[in-house]
């Protein structure tokens, strides 16, 4: 079981319908590359977040496959087109099998 990712998601306070807005996401995760050695010289096994799916209003916006070259505590930015007030959902898959989900409200005016 992995610890909570404590996702911090930055969305605009409000968007206009049709406006393309940036979403910034920061999560807490060591993203162990499988290349690092501990004090005893043993390789620390790989454990990364290997996938992210982004949905808005229940429909997929983007999906990402992450490799060990993504730095610890991933900070990601991407865009989506605002349609109506609703939830932006993030779904991460950890190498250990854990699925992390979070929902974030996007307010759309007009």
């Amino acid at each position: 079981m992995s610890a909570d990712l404590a996702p911090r998601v930055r969305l605009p306070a409000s968007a206009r319908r049709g406006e393309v807005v940036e979403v910034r996401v920061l999560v807490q995760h060591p993203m162990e590359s499988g290349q690092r050695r501990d004090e005893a010289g043993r390789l620390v096994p790989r454990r990364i977040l290997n996938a992210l799916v982004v949905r808005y209003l229940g429909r997929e916006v983007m999906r990402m496959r992450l490799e060990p070259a993504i730095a610890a505590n991933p900070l990601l930015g991407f865009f989506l087109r605002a349609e109506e007030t609703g939830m932006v959902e993030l779904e991460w898959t950890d190498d250990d099998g854990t699925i992390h989900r979070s929902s974030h409200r996007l307010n759309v005016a007009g």
Partner: protein
Amino acid sequence: MAETLPRRALVAAGLAAAMAPLPRESGATPAEARDLLQRLAPGAAREGRVALRIEAIVDNGAQVPLVVSVESPMTEADHVRALHVVADGNPAPGVASFAFTPRAGRCEVSMRLRLARSQRVVALAEMSDGSLWTASREVTVTVGGCSA
């Protein structure tokens, strides 16, 4: 030879070795990076439509900001289907792959990379019409980020 060195010198030498750029042979090669891109998106790519924003010289390879953007209206008829990023000097060449829908509105993503040594970062975009577009940037790394 080594056993005649005092322990402190050995530790210092080990530390220096850990800090120094790793030899090229222990990482991916440009050929491996090209092969990976060919597997991910087979075909001939043209230069253009893709922009990589990354510092040319970075002090800390553990956290290297990268922004990749692709010129596209992101409509149902004309959008970016996939975007792949590779780095040709890390232990493995893969960095990230994205699949987009027109709902993204704009094809631009930002992330932070680990770069083990100086190398070339390559992005390849696959459009909805099947065309492939690419761009790359050479990055000089002073302290590698592989063990971070």
